[in-house]
């Protein structure tokens, strides 16, 4: 009896200890912690090409336009706009009564200062090429901004809606200078910058003077980079994080069991491809490319490597991107593949190499699956998953296409502006041959080049639709890449958090963030 009592006491003491420990980790009300898998390298939206970095900068900055959670363009700091007939002059009416965090008024002068900064080559900003079609920016009056383009540019509004086209306070820009503004973001966004502890988190507090009445609905937001997958999942379970992205497939089952957590999956515009080096035998032969298309079971790939969080790609441009043509996936047909190889002169197959542009687990599984599928039709491939530095050396910056060692290459793409030009031109246009952009197939077709170029300068929606359709149909004939799967985005949040969404391009929309 006495012994029991002492066990009881010990248990009580332990419980008390647990309570003390737990109380420390409970978050103050109104403070949301968002755990992400990568550390932002900068807080200057004009100096990054990383999608996730702009997810963070959006807490502090806003642009003239923005994307909603489904990547539809919305007015943000611009209330309306008109385009001249020739598609060259855009006139924007700006929202009234908007202030930057430092009290500076947002007006046409401020917008002009921001855009002039990125266009000035002396500032050496990574996003300069996004605005290289702009001839001049003028502040007509405080509420009217006029932008003149050098040539018509169909997706110009999309370019302005991109998270990197954010409005920066001109006062702050003067105070901190072109470089240091990256460490002191001052925008019109819902949150004011508090601190950036490199090893811990980026913290923002509610901006009292935010123009949108009633927003933001929480007091503080913290973006916490946690690169280790299982650790992010654990943080969600302990309540130390309210939102985690990305979520590894193997954690889903555990998290779904928890009553504090909600797991969300939604279609993305992140597409995975198998590309061929079309300058090299045997991939210069269209029959070989077609045969490989038939040899791969895309549904099985989605199940095996992506645990079902992907589906067979429906064409070259994923659904959700404007002007995407929905196509049937190339059916899985080993017999047909073998016949095509025979016709191409490779009845016994051949040997080649298959590289992956990523070295994460999912990609390793994918290339192993592809290797096994290709072996069924007699194509023996040796595998290598390239780590980032090696990939940069061998693929992204290999100077001469003719000597490029890439043969079969597994890689992905998502159009960060959510429109067809950026989904096709970097991948398939002759001007985009690696190392310039991502045409790793060294594919060149006049119809595709012309359609893409014409669509880019057209402002007529119907004409653009036809042009992009032509290009995509040509791609289906030529098969410079085999579309494999379209991924689903997978993320989880605590039940007390709402209004944070992972968008189809893998960016995060947190404009409606709220806590229960």
């Amino acid at each position: 009896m006495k012994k029991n009592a002492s066990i009881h006491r010990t248990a009580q003491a332990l419980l008390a200890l647990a309570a003390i420990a737990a109380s420390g980790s409970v978050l103050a009300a109104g403070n949301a912690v968002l755990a992400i898998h990568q550390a932002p390298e900068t807080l200057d939206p004009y100096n990054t090409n990383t999608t996730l970095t702009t997810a963070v900068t959006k807490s502090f900055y806003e642009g003239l336009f923005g994307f909603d959670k489904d990547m539809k363009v919305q007015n943000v700091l611009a209330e309306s706009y008109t385009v001249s007939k020739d598609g060259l002059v855009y006139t924007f009416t700006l929202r009234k009564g908007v202030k930057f965090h430092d009290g500076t008024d947002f007006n046409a002068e401020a917008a002009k200062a921001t855009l002039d900064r990125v266009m000035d080559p002396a500032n050496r900003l990574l996003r300069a090429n996004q605005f290289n079609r702009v001839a001049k920016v003028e502040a007509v009056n405080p509420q009217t901004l006029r932008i003149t383009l050098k040539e018509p540019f169909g997706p110009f509004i999309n370019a302005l809606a991109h998270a990197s086209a954010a409005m920066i306070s001109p006062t702050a820009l003067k105070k901190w200078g072109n470089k240091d503004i990256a460490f002191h973001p001052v925008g019109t966004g819902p949150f004011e910058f508090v601190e950036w502890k490199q090893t811990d988190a980026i913290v923002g507090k509610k901006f009292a003077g935010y123009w949108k009445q009633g927003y933001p609905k929480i007091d503080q937001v913290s973006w916490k980079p946690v690169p280790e997958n299982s650790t992010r999942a654990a943080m969600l379970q302990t309540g130390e994080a309210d939102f985690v992205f990305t979520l590894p497939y193997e954690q889903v089952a555990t998290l779904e069991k928890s009553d504090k957590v909600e797991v969300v999956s939604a279609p993305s515009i992140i597409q995975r491809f198998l590309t061929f080096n079309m300058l090299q035998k045997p991939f210069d032969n269209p029959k070989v490319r077609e045969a490989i298309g038939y040899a791969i079971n895309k549904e099985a790939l989605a199940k095996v490597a992506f645990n079902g969080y992907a589906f067979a790609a429906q064409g070259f441009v994923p659904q959700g991107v404007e002007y995407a043509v929905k196509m049937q996936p190339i059916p899985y047909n080993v017999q047909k593949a073998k016949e095509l190889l025979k016709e191409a002169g490779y009845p016994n197959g051949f040997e080649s190499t298959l590289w992956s542009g990523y070295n994460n687990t999912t990609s390793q599984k994918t290339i192993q699956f592809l290797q096994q599928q290709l072996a069924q039709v007699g194509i023996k491939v040796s595998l290598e998953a390239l780590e980032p530095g090696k990939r940069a050396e061998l693929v992204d910056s290999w100077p001469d296409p003719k000597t490029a060692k890439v043969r079969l290459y597994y890689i992905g793409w998502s159009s960060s502006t959510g429109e067809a030009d950026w989904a096709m031109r970097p991948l398939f246009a002759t001007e985009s041959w690696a190392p310039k952009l991502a045409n790793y197939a060294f594919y060149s077709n006049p119809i595709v080049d012309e359609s893409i170029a014409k669509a880019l300068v057209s402002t007529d929606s119907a004409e653009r639709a036809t042009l992009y359709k032509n290009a995509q149909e040509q791609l289906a004939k030529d098969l410079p890449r085999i579309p494999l799967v379209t991924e689903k985005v997978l993320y989880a949040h605590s039940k007390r958090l709402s209004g944070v969404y992972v968008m189809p391009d893998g960016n995060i929309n947190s404009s409606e963030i709220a806590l229960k």
Partner: protein
Amino acid sequence: MLNYFLKRLLGLLPTLLIVAVLVFFFVHMLPGDPARLAAGQDADEATIQLVRQELGLDKPLPEQFLNFFMHMVQGDFGTSMRTRRPVLVEISERFMPTLLLTVTSMVWSVIFGMGIGIMSAVYRNKWPDRLGMTLAVSGISFPAFALGMLLMQIFSVNLGWLPTVGADSWRHYILPSLTLGAAVAAVMARFTRASFVEVVQEDFVRTARAKGLNERVVVLKHCLRNALIPVITMMGLQFGFLLGGSIVVESVFNWPGLGRLLVDAVTMRDYPVIQTLVLLFSLEFILINLVVDMLYGFINPTIRYK
């Protein structure tokens, strides 16, 4: 003794110099273009060229080396290519968390490791020895990654006693230091035991017992002191390794330390950060070795320095 110490400190300089030269050229021989990596996937060639100029990578290699070297001598280690912040700031804000974690891990693992080692040696081939060595072998063979995840699952997720990530309070140190120290404790236990078993058979131990000394005095005074030399050597080595920041433990517990910084730097080919970190790790090792050498003298006064 002081003379010897100063001489060794001076000898440090040429070693570091050689390390600096070697690491510069090795790092630049790694495949991969930092400008390409820093510019990101969407970047076109003009953008990459821009970044290359910005980072000073368009200059010939000898000029880059000269630049790096002249700045280094003046104590300027450059700016990180990834974050554009001074390398010294990046390293200094991560140094203390790594040092503190290393020290806490070392303290408990040395106490436990040596304790188990001595017990095992004294009760050689009896049950305390078997138990101790079973623990030690498990400690060595259990991967730190798995141990970390397991501890986190039990104590943070299931029981909710301890926080998962961060380094703000003492409670944050418990799980990472347990994980980090487990392998060290195991190594220490095996080393102490091996060394002790040898010493126990020496003549002077028999003499000590023969003159009627208490067994505790024999073990803790006569044996331990003599068995300590290889153990101290091992301790120094382990300490040096841990100071480099454990990549695995730091990523599991999201520890703001040097190991993660090194991994990030290597992935992005962040030359200045890699160079400075390797220099720092070399310096740490040289200093620890020096301290270990000095300790020999205290443990065994017959060792003399010239």
